[in-house]
């Protein structure tokens, strides 16, 4: 019997348990603010947000795979697409467009017009240099790493900093094959 075809983002989102976004948005906002108070340095906050995102990513990947019936993530191009169309949709209810690939197809941009993280948010002047949505890049990085793609994810555009959209740059560093963990001489 053939494995089920991967589902469309809408189908998945329609079927997962959803909650109203306010709780999500406000909680994230509160976390960021608390981090700013505790860590004082904006750079440090960016780092920690990314780290948190990473940890979330390595958890979420399995749920994603389980519910989207995606059976293989070998090709980077495909994978990027799946993230943009299915992954983001399934969790945040928004989709991104995948654009400007580089020639050797190892880096591309995810462009979001809007995302629930930033509702109500307005960066104070004291927090310039903060990548508010940095958790998102972390999540993607973590998730990709779980499907053995070491990537580098960075923000190119950020509406909170006055840009016209949110643009994430994905760069595939290498694909790590799984190797045999045990010493043979055991």
């Amino acid at each position, binding site marked *: *019997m053939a*494995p089920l075809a991967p589902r469309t983002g809408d189908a*998945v989102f329609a*079927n*997962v*348990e959803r909650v109203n976004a306010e709780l999500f948005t406000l909680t994230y906002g509160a976390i960021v603010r608390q981090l700013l108070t505790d860590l004082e340095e904006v750079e440090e906050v960016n780092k920690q947000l990314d780290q948190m995102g990473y*940890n979330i990513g*390595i*958890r979420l*990947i*399995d*749920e994603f*795979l*389980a*519910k989207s019936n*995606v*059976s*293989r*993530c*070998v090709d980077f191009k495909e994978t990027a697409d799946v993230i943009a169309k299915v992954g983001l949709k399934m969790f945040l209810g928004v989709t991104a467009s995948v654009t400007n690939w580089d020639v050797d197809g190892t880096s591309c941009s995810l462009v979001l017009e809007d995302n629930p993280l930033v509702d109500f948010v307005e960066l104070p002047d004291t927090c310039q240099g903060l990548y508010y949505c940095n958790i998102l890049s972390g999540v993607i990085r973590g998730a990709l790493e*779980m*499907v*053995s793609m070491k990537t580098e994810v960075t923000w190119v555009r950020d509406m909170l900093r006055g840009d016209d959209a949110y643009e994430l740059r994905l760069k595939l560093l290498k*694909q790590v*094959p*799984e*190797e*045999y*963990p*045990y010493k043979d001489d*055991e």
Partner: protein
Amino acid sequence: MQFFGGSDISPSPPVATGSGSNGHMMYVFNRNGICLLYREWNRPLRTLSSQQDHKLMFGLLFSLKSFTAKMDPTSVDKGNLGVPQLPGQGCSFHSFRTNTFKLSFMESPSGIKIILVTNPKTGDLRESLKYIYNLYVEYVVKNPLYSPGTPIKCELFNTSLDQYVKNLA
């Protein structure tokens, strides 16, 4: 019982046909070959230490996968034998049967490997493995107290797993 927050994503547990309790044991490995879970329901004869046991099982799968990939008549690029591959890369087997037992195997792209050893007569268990994978997501990954990559110690998971495997075709 409400497993998946009412979502119909996961296959509804395949109907248990025939008498239950023909599951022998089950392994869950993560991508680093760490045995997250070993569960046994019926294994009259145990010869090896559990580490040895786990190691052998992982080794078996590992090489079996590269074999099958190597043997694959359809795909062009054949890494030489034993060369590690990406999870989900190339073709993969999903079960084999001996005269005494059947081993069913599934691997998620994230490298989670679920091995279910049952008696030789059991039918195709791919859906069941998928279902178990979903159980894993719901009760292990989403358990606030579980930190990824560590051995699984979740009541909820174990109970629902046993429950499910008990009446498995």
